């Protein structure tokens, strides 16, 4: 069962049978919006980038993004940069895998962000979504649609954080501006 999350909603990543999730994948998919006008079928390429920032008590420790694909500790892995987005719907264009069992003990939050590297705002992007998948069985746990477009080039999508002995995911959906995660740091900090 998929939960369609709304901004600020938190879901626990405990499995329904009481077990905890061991590996989750944050998938990001998008499609370039078709241009209006004479050459309406022509699309402009949009490069969205997914990044994950590892925090320990509000202190950024490590970042996983297209130039640093694996966190030093090996727990968070980016499957690689996609420069153009998906042609169709539904598929993940960029994925970040988190092995929750291997996350270092002092890391208590992992924040996922999306940036438009090529500078288009989300108005020019169609069908953008982020979703959280239980990687062990491929089941979608939560989906968050990046709708509402707006004049933003970045979005702080969600965070996965420790809660008790397990993990919890909170949808953030906060708009921001920036080319890479570095520009987003000031915008991320209030959400920790």
């Amino acid at each position, binding site marked *: 069962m998929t939960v369609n999350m709304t901004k600020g909603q938190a879901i626990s990543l405990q499995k329904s049978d009481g077990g905890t999730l061991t590996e989750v994948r944050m998938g990001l998919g998008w499609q370039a919006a078709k241009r209006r006008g004479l050459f309406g079928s022509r699309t402009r390429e949009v490069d969205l980038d997914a990044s994950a920032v590892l925090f320990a008590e509000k*202190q950024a420790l*490590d970042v996983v993004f297209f130039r640093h694909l694996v966190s030093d*500790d*090996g727990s968070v892995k980016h499957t690689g940069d996609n420069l153009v987005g998906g042609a169709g719907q539904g598929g993940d264009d960029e994925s970040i895998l988190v092995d929750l069992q291997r996350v270092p*003990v*002092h890391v208590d939050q992992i924040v996922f962000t999306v940036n438009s590297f090529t500078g288009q705002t989300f108005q020019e992007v169609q069908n953008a979504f982020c979703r959280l998948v239980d990687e062990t069985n491929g089941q979608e746990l939560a989906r968050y649609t990046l709708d509402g477009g707006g004049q933003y080039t970045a979005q702080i999508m969600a965070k996965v954080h420790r809660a008790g002995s397990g993990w919890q995911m909170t949808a953030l959906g906060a708009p921001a501006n920036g080319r890479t995660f570095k520009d987003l740091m000031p915008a991320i900090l209030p959400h920790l």
Partner: protein
Amino acid sequence: MTAELVRGQNLPLPHTRLEIRVSAGTPLLAGATLADDAGRLSGPGRVVHPGAPARPGVTIPTRAATEHLVTLDLAALDPETHRITVLLVLPGGPGRPGSFGSVTPPPRLSVGGAAGAGVAGYTLTGLDAETAVAALEVYRRQGVWKVRAVGQGYAGGLSALLADQGLAPASAADLAAATLAAATAEARPAHLPDAPYDAGTGAGTGISAGPGTHAATGGIAASAAAALPPADRAATPAQTASAPAATTGAAAADIPSGPAAAPKAPTGAALPGPQSPPSAPPGTTISYQHPRRRPAGSGQEPAPPAPPSGPEAPWAGDAAGWTMDERLYNQVWGMFEDLARTTAAYRSAVDFADSRREQELDRALADPRARLGSAGDAARAAAGARYDELTGRARESLDRDLAQLTAEAEVVEPALPPAYAPWDHPAWQAYRPPAEPAMAVRLGDLHLPERPELRIPVLMRLPLERGLWIDGGRGPASGAAAPDGAGLRELAVRTAVMHAVRLLAAHPPGAYKLDAVDPAGTGAAAFAPLTAAGLLAPPPQGAAGVAAVLDRVVRRVELVRMAMRGGAADALPPDLDPAARLLIVNDFPYGFDDRSVTRLRYLADEGPAVGVHLLLVADRADAAAYGPVLDPLWSSLLRLPPVPDEHLADPWVGHAWTYQPPVVPAGSGVLGGVGAALAASRR
């Protein structure tokens, strides 16, 4: 030392008398099948089972047990036997695992010679709902006996296994039932024997054993049970046919040839032989339960133990690759990366805990009221406790990961081929030159201070991309324990010879050759294993000797480069040796003039592309007079000091690893032995 087999791997057997020891977490039955050259069983008589536990050359145990000994005498086998499959069967029964998936620890087989010398080990992992498994096979291939790890499980039980080997389904079913029944008495729990024995009940109703047997074998056990009692009490075919149908209901449907099997049952009764125990032992009660359907909360049949929750037992070759060597190579690199990353996680956590404690102490001290008195002490204690708690948890997960990696190293190291193995590894004792170049060679070990005893082999791909530099100089990191001056130089040239022998041994005979430059003759003693075996011509002395060897090697590089550029490989002169070459340069730059230095730099730059590699034994300080002009030479070579040093970084996190150069055990003649084997194969 035994080789750890992975599924599908085979190994030639050095002995014809073999002992196969089986151990498992629960009692098992062991058996064997003797197949012909087509891999088929010609009849039920080709199965060695607990009812008929001995045939010429094969002896198996008759009882279900957690430890077994199967002995094979390959010389005593009848000539039509080409393949012996050692099989394991779960006897089932109350409180016992119903499938191999819940057997912990998993069954392990070790193959050894009669003298106790280990040959191979194999752990059956990855099994699930199977109740019978073909574990190992010993087979004859072109006159040589080999052992292969099979691990093929059958959810349909022993009958499916036997049918798969070519036995008619009906007789396979009979035989399977007989086998299980023969061992049922032993498989029975010990708390039942005092109850009165009513043979008539057991035989007449066709109910045997406990419900677990039914669960394990479906309807087969039921029909066989009716068949098993001695002849005077044997059921008629009609009774036998009705018995399973009436009492176990749907179980009969589980046999593919249910109706056909039942009339044959009386013939099956003869199979276990006179020593077969009565089928309905003391105290058996009739169960009207459906064999597969278990009421919830029934105390009769405890659920099989839950599968182990911890990580799977590691096995050698657990990585991707086309060949075992490639899989081991990838596995070693995987272990290298995992160790680097788990250590990074630990260090990051400790650093964080450190800085947090620092901040908390600063904050406590910044408050003047807290500087004196109990409040300050309490703040300090709290900060210390938080530090200890976090580092303790970090250490816990590090220890967990290190234990896993250590366990992996323990199975991987014994499985390594010679090119990846340390010099004290038994693989070197049985060294034979390979037919193909090895994929990589081991240049030493790496470890981190968190767990110095966990060593990761440094495996370098072949052909080498760059030359090697054995640093005879006193590096900044070498401690007081390191030998100095002449001792270090001596050690450096000996280490260089170890690398040279390993590179030679990693190539087929004649495909890799050595040249050496040793103008002062200081390496003569170290080169002895090579020169004695005829693998290296004694290096000419003096500056003229240096120039002559360099000219020869440079000429080869130039010719091959020209031919490659011109696309005219067939235009090479016929006297040109196509073998790859390693040029050992001892005591650089002694005996080198400017021209020779230039040629050496040319070889370092252009040689690797055409199969000519440098092995430079040098102290950089000796060449200081050349100034920065030699810096590109040093940086183009991989520096390998002859003493432990912390100069290598991993490509992922960049830890400084302690490099441990290879060591030949004192008094070991392994280098000479390998040299002799190489020399012998060249003739």
